[in-house]
């Protein structure tokens, strides 16, 4: 039952070495593409190594050669049998103006749900503060929000020197990194069957609702809008998109009404999840810059109408972008 191992290795060594060379080349270059002749040769070498492995498995007990061939076949298998479509070159513009808005629209139900949860939190936070102003100390996460809104407005409108001089860039970086971390956390908590994502959205809604109500009750509505709108028109949607991604993740894990296995469901949504969180990160970079360089400046330095106008334009552009960009260019509603 034992084949001539020595002769077998001598005959096949050339082909194994060639296959190994192919694999090394592929493994060292993530973007490598083979031409037709190379692909055919690679397939032939894979088939030959597979056949060798089958022969060894049945006719020899020699384990070292068996293990070596097994590793060659295993490495080649993933290259040969991979049929999922993937881009071979980075195409940021196509991603931004096609893939991103399409991924958003493909999971629009999760977006509405995320928006509803955050709105519920917003109402809850606002109502809580209106009914019990003493709850402010508990609801506000940041020290600078716990003071009187009117005093803050007066102080910042009075300021003659640039109070953020020398720390603006660091401020922008802090806003970007902090918000991106919060967004990633909001998305990945979707792995808790979506419960963690819902809590994060609701909690962020509570804070936002409490802050808004606090400034409204103090009669500082104009200041509030001009302070929040420039960056909030991008930042708040970004957090909701992160929630949308988290709910998509949670939905895939729960899988109610879906006959696919969890593995298939996860495979189906993984690209969209990464696209959504990539879009969130992009929006938060922009929001961080606006928050550090524009939102924190008030009248007389920057007029409220300018800030409100800027925020409104951003929000309208974002809505238009998400609603219409990338239509008719590729997969829609998948």
């Amino acid at each position: 039952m034992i084949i001539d191992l020595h002769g077998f290795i001598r005959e096949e060594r050339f082909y194994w070495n060639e296959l190994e060379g192919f694999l090394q080349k592929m493994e060292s270059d993530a973007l490598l593409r083979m031409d037709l002749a190379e692909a055919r040769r690679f397939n032939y070498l894979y088939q030959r190594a597979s056949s060798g492995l089958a022969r060894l498995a049945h006719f020899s007990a020699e384990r070292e050669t068996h293990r070596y061939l097994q590793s060659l076949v295993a490495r080649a298998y993933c290259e040969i049998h991979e049929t999922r479509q993937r881009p071979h070159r980075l195409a940021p513009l196509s991603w931004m103006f096609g893939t991103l808005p399409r991924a958003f629209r493909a999971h629009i139900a999760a977006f509405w749900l995320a928006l509803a949860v955050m709105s519920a939190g917003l109402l809850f936070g606002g109502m809580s503060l209106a009914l019990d102003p003493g709850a402010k100390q508990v609801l506000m996460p940041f020290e600078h929000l716990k003071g009187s809104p009117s005093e803050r407005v007066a102080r910042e409108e009075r300021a003659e020197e640039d109070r953020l001089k020398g720390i603006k860039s660091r401020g922008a970086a802090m806003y970007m990194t902090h918000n991106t971390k919060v967004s990633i956390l909001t998305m990945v908590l979707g792995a808790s069957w979506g419960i963690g994502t819902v809590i994060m959205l609701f909690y962020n809604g509570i804070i936002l609702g409490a802050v808004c109500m606090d400034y409204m009750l103090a009669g500082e509505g104009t200041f509030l809008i001009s302070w929040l709108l420039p960056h909030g028109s991008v930042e708040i949607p970004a957090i909701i998109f992160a929630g949308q991604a988290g709910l998509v993740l949670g939905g895939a894990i729960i899988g109610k009404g879906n006959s696919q296995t969890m593995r298939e469901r996860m495979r189906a949504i993984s690209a969209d999840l990464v696209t959504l969180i990539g879009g969130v990160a992009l929006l938060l970079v922009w929001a961080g810059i606006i928050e550090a360089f524009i939102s924190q400046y008030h009248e007389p330095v920057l007029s409220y109408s300018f800030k409100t106008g800027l925020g409104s334009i951003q929000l309208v552009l974002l809505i238009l972008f998400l609603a219409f960009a990338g239509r008719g260019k590729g997969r829609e509603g998948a």
Partner: protein
Amino acid sequence: MSKIPLIGRSASLAFRTPEGVSFSYPLAGPVSRFLALSIDLICIAGITVILNMALGAFRIATPDIVGAVLMIGYFLVSIGYGIVLEWLWRGQTIGKRILRLRVMDIQGLRLEPSQIAIRNLLRFIDSLPVFYLVGGVSCLISRNCQRIGDLAANTVVVRMPLISEPDLDRIMPGKFNSLRQYPHLATRLRQKASPAEASIALRALMRREELFPEARIELFAMVADHFRPLVRFPEEATRGLSDEQYVTNIADILFRVDKATSK
């Protein structure tokens, strides 16, 4: 594709290809994965220190911008280290490379960039509450030793032992084999020896350099004693042969077909 449902470190992931060939990967356990992660954390810390030193010279002139660059740089390195390296090195980071581990698709296919991104982003949840407790527990209880990130991304971490092309000339150098003087007995030996017995002889030869001298003598004495009664070669063929040489000659007969006798 089929799986061997074992828990944790001893499990392996088995595949059957459409060509009818089977192969398997040994799964990496939580300890080796934690060690690889520790190496990666040291690398991340090292990159951050280098970044800090490189930008330190500019700190006096533009402290605000340097501070911002450092903050964003640290964030990008800590998030992007695993994503970029696993993409460029087909599922390996520096830590995984050193410990010969590799992330792979659970169906044995190529890793998709989205799979790499998801498993790395979900580290946030795996690292909760401290020291990757969630991820560690998940590894221990999941069938394929997967943390939450792996489950979501459909990936597993496997061990990739260094396997080089077998070199039979090294263990059976093709010297004169006195047992081949008796081709009818050599043929009978091939008929009588089972694959498992042949494998024992070959593996003993392949690993003989790893053994202590006493253990080596003892092992080859046992193996030779097992083969001697199988086919009795004349005394003149075995006279002066050590047990190790006897086993070498036996393996030579079993694994190398003589051109003259095979025709």
